C-alpha cells in the first residue's frame, strides 16, 4: 500500500505535461485578467464598489491577505494589474518561471481576497491551480529558461504529484457540481437549458427555440449532467480519454458560445492538460505536423486504440 501511494505521487511523469499545464494556466489567467481590466477601479480601488470597511467586517477572523489592502489608489491598482499581466506572460513563456509562479499565486490570492463579492467558480479554479503550478515541477523543457540555459535534466521524467493534485481538483469540481445539480427539479425535468437560454446569462435571451422545442433542452440538460458526472473517470483511462476530452471541451464550448460565461469555459481548459501522458503529447505534436487528410486519418486512429493508464 505504501509503495502504491509513493508511486502514485512520485512515479515518473512527462515534464511536457507540466509545461502544458503551466502554459494553458498562464494563458487563461491572463484572459481572466483582461476580462477584469475594464472594472479594475470598481472592484479593487478604494473609490470602487467593494469598500475595505465592509471587507474587513465580513472577513473578520479569516486568514485573508491581499496586496490590494496596501495598494488602494486607482493608479496603484492599474500598475498592479499591469505587473500581474507581465508575471502571467513570463509564466506562460517560462521566463524566470518560479518567480513568475510566485507572483501569479500572489495575484490570484490578492484579487480574490480583495474583490470577494464579484467572484465566480472560475476564480476559485484559477486560485487553486495557481498554488498547484507554484509547487509543481515547472515543465522547464518548454520554456525560455530552457532555451537560454538548457540543462540535461530538463527533458527527463519528473514526479507526478503536481499532475495528481490538478487531476483531483478537476475530479472534485465535476463531482461536486453533479452532486449539487442532480437533486434539482429543473435539472431532473430537463428544462434547465430552455430556461437558461432565455435568462440574463444567455447570449440570445430573446430566442425561444429551446422553449418551443423542449425535448432538445431535455437531451442537452441530461447530456450536460452525464458529462459532468463522467468526465474525470473518462479522462483517467487512456482508452476513454479522447471521449472525456471531447465531452469536456464540447460541454465548455457549448457554454462558452451560448452563455455570457466565456471566461469560465476558457479557464476550464487547464486541468484537462494534467491528464495527458507522453503518448498523448507525442500524438498532439504529431497532429500539428499533419499536412494531408491521409496524415490526419493515420494520426486519429492510434489515439483511440493504444491502451495505456494515465500518468
Amino acid at each position: 500500500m505504501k509503495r502504491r501511494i509513493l508511486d502514485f505521487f512520485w512515479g515518473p511523469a512527462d515534464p511536457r505535461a507540466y509545461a502544458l499545464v503551466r502554459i494553458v494556466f498562464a494563458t487563461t489567467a491572463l484572459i481572466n485578467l483582461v476580462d477584469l481590466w475594464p472594472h479594475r477601479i470598481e472592484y479593487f480601488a478604494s473609490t470602487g464598489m467593494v469598500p475595505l470597511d465592509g471587507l474587513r467586517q465580513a472577513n473578520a477572523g479569516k486568514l485573508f491577505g491581499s496586496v490590494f489592502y496596501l495598494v488602494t489608489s486607482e493608479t496603484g491598482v492599474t500598475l498592479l494589474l499591469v505587473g500581474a499581466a507581465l508575471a502571467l506572460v513570463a509564466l506562460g513563456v517560462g521566463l524566470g518561471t518560479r518567480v513568475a509562479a510566485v507572483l501569479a499565486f500572489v495575484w490570484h490570492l490578492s484579487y480574490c481576497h480583495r474583490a470577494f463579492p464579484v467572484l465566480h467558480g472560475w476564480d476559485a479554479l484559477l486560485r487553486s491551480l495557481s498554488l498547484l503550478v507554484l509547487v509543481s515541477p515547472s515543465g522547464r523543457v518548454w520554456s525560455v529558461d530552457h532555451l537560454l540555459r538548457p540543462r540535461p535534466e530538463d527533458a527527463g521524467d519528473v514526479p507526478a504529484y503536481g499532475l495528481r493534485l490538478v487531476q483531483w481538483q478537476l475530479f472534485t469540481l465535476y463531482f461536486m457540481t453533479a452532486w449539487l445539480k442532480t437533486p434539482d427539479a429543473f435539472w431532473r425535468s430537463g428544462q434547465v437549458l430552455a430556461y437558461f437560454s432565455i435568462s440574463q446569462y444567455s447570449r440570445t435571451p430573446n430566442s425561444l427555440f429551446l422553449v418551443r422545442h423542449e425535448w432538445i433542452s431535455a437531451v442537452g440538460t441530461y447530456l450536460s449532467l452525464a458529462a459532468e458526472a463522467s468526465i474525470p473517470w473518462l479522462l483517467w483511462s487512456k482508452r476513454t480519454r479522447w471521449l472525456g476530452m471531447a465531452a469536456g471541451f464540447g460541454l465548455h464550448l457549448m457554454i462558452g458560445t451560448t452563455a455570457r460565461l466565456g471566461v469560465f469555459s476558457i479557464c476550464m481548459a487547464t486541468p484537462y492538460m494534467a491528464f495527458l501522458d507522453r503518448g498523448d503529447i507525442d500524438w498532439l505534436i504529431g497532429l500539428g505536423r499533419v499536412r494531408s487528410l491521409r496524415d490526419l486519418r493515420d494520426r486519429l486512429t492510434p489515439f483511440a486504440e493504444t491502451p495505456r493508464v494515465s500518468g
Partner: protein
Amino acid sequence: MADGGGVTLSPRWRTGLKGAACALFLGHMFATCAQAIPETSALRPVAVPLRHYDELTGLWQTWDMFTTIPYFHGYALDLVVTEPDGRIETAGALLPGLRTFDAHVVRTETLFMRYLYDPEYAPYLHAYVAKACGELHARTGHGGQKLIVRESIQRMRWLNQIREDGVVANPEEHASQVFECGG
C-alpha cells in the same frame, strides 16, 4: 528523475521525505473536498480544522453555480435619491462616479445580488451605501439624502406560459431598505 536539488540523501531519508510529502498531498486533497461537506452533515466538523489552510492557500471553493435555473430574463439597477427638499432623482449605481449600471457585466450583477440578498454581505452593502452618499455629497455639495437601491427585474415565466403567448418575463421592481446619508 529530475526531482531533487544538489543535496544527496540516503535512500531511507529520501523515502521518508517522500512519504511525508505524500501525507501533505493527501491532506491537500482532503481539504479540497472536505469543505464541500454540507453544514448540516454530521461529518462537517472534519472540515473545520482545515478552514485556515483553505484560506491561506486560496483553496476555498464552492461549485454551486447554476445548481438550479436562473430566474431573471433581464436585470438592471439604479439608485433612487430623495433630496432633503423632497425632490426625487435617480443616479447610476456604479462607483466611482455614480455611473449607469451595465447589465452585460456578470460580475457586477453578481456583486449587487449578493449585496442585496445575502445577509453575509450586509457589511459590504452598508459600506457601499456610505461611499455612494459620499459621492452624492461631493456632487451636490450637501448631504442628508435618502437613498434606495432599486432593482428593475424581468422575472422569467414558466415555459408553458411562454409557449402560450410568447411573453418571456414579467417586469418587477424591488426597492432596498431606505438608507439615510448623513449631513
